[in-house]
């Protein structure tokens, strides 16, 4: 990079020397060279800022969840922890985000005075409408994910992939990629590709990385890793 810059300014200096000797102006050669270098660096800095700071912000739109759900409050109210709402069906499929019917045991009428609950009861319970939750971890259509394999098979904790949502007091905004329509949780926030926590993102390489450590990683003839059909459908 720096080699390139020097090279460029050399060329420019050379041209400038010729020009100044030709028409005998007072412009000093080193002066014009450093201006150009300055502009170059300024432009570089600006495009870096645009690329690393502005673009990622522009790339995602924020959407508010229809309701602010409080996990912490509800965990005190239910009998069997997460499984009261997020359970496995008998055939091994995962129920995912709860349906309205699962809330009605308690919320058939207003329990308290909070704004969120009033909204919930008036807009959804009374009208019998399902809450259109936005799922942070939603994978693209072509991806098959199995909670059964990871909970029963691999004994993983929810936290490993979802972070602390399960114990949060309110829901963060959902961020949608303007180009692909996918959630920001898939590719993560860190544009340099750094990952601190296991739940920072969940793209193809993140699944594959863990599978590699787990040693279930060799059925594909094409790649020598997991066959595509393990995770795709």
């Amino acid at each position, binding site marked *: 990079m720096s080699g390139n810059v020097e090279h460029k300014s050399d060329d420019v200096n050379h041209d400038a020397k010729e020009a100044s000797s030709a028409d005998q102006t007072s412009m000093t050669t080193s002066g014009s060279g450093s201006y150009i270098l300055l502009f170059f660096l300024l432009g570089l800095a600006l495009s870096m800022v645009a690329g690393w700071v502005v673009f990622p912000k522009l790339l995602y739109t924020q959407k508010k969840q229809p309701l602010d759900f409080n996990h912490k409050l509800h965990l005190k109210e239910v009998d069997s922890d997460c499984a009261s709402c997020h359970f496995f069906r008998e055939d091994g499929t995962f129920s995912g985000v709860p349906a309205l019917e699962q809330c009605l045991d308690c919320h058939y009428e207003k329990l308290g005075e909070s704004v969120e609950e009033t909204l919930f009861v008036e807009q959804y319970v009374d009208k019998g409408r399902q809450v259109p939750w936005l799922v942070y971890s939603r994978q693209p*259509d072509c991806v098959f994910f199995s909670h059964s394999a990871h909970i029963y098979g691999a004994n993983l904790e929810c936290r490993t992939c979802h972070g602390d949502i399960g114990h949060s007091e309110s829901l963060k905004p959902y961020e949608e990629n303007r180009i692909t329509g996918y959630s920001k949780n898939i590719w993560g926030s860190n544009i340099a590709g750094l990952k601190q926590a296991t739940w920072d993102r969940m793209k193809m390489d993140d699944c594959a990385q863990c599978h590699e450590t787990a040693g279930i990683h060799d*059925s594909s003839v094409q790649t020598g890793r997991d066959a595509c*059909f393990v995770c*795709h*459908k």
Partner: protein
Amino acid sequence: MKQEHTQHRSKRYGMVIDLDKCTGCGACMVACFSENNVPFKKDETDKRLSITWMKVYRIDNGRDFPNNQVCYIPRPCQHCAGQHEGHSPCVSVCPATATDYSRETGIVSQIYTRCFGCRYCMGACPYHARYFNWWDPVWPEGMEKYLSPNVSPRMRGVVEKCSFCFHRYQLARDKAYANRRKDVKEADYQTACTQACPAGAITFGDLNNPGHAVHQIVKPNDHVVKNKAGISIIGKSQNPNVFRMLERLGTNTKVYYLSSREWVRKAGDNYIADEKPEDMFAEQKKH
């Protein structure tokens, strides 16, 4: 084998179709369409443009009445293993790694989001089992609500084909995990066409598992045999009535056919007029 350090022994899913039972009703084709979100158009008269993961062909013995006989041949993707496991005609030519072969199940996959539509695989496939999407699918009004969430829909410009209803395998795995089993039961993983066939002509299962019906009918040979051209034939059936389509090519498909009629068996492997089946395996007879 490489699979040994993973949790399960490798499987080879395949099917055997009894052509003496097939009536050509097409129920398998319909079941396949609805199971796999296969797109269709208002006008399907030009069959070259139709997408049919499962297609029923009709052949006859070329004789005049009253000796004329007809046979219907249902054709899903044959899930070729090739000369060595995974050397399927389509997999070996795909420049994008969009199609893959799993050593664990023997199934040839197609990842639509990865495919860029060069159609090299279609040229390589000897069975015309692959189809190109010339258009984005247009569902009749309201029908998109009835699409299966277990199979991702395709878009214009990609190739698609039969997956042996792989999503059903994924669901069967889910069930196995929930029941703390490692293995998928025969009844838990059956393709849509197998279940739809009113004549019970299709039998599906793991060809490597002696407990599965498909293994018992096909009785695949453990040994590799060579045909006259020096091509390895893997898993050749030891049932004299069972054959594979164009078996002589060495594609080593996992779809077998069963018929008691010799002309049908001969048509399936494209015999030259007075060639005898024994001729093809001349070398095998020597030892």
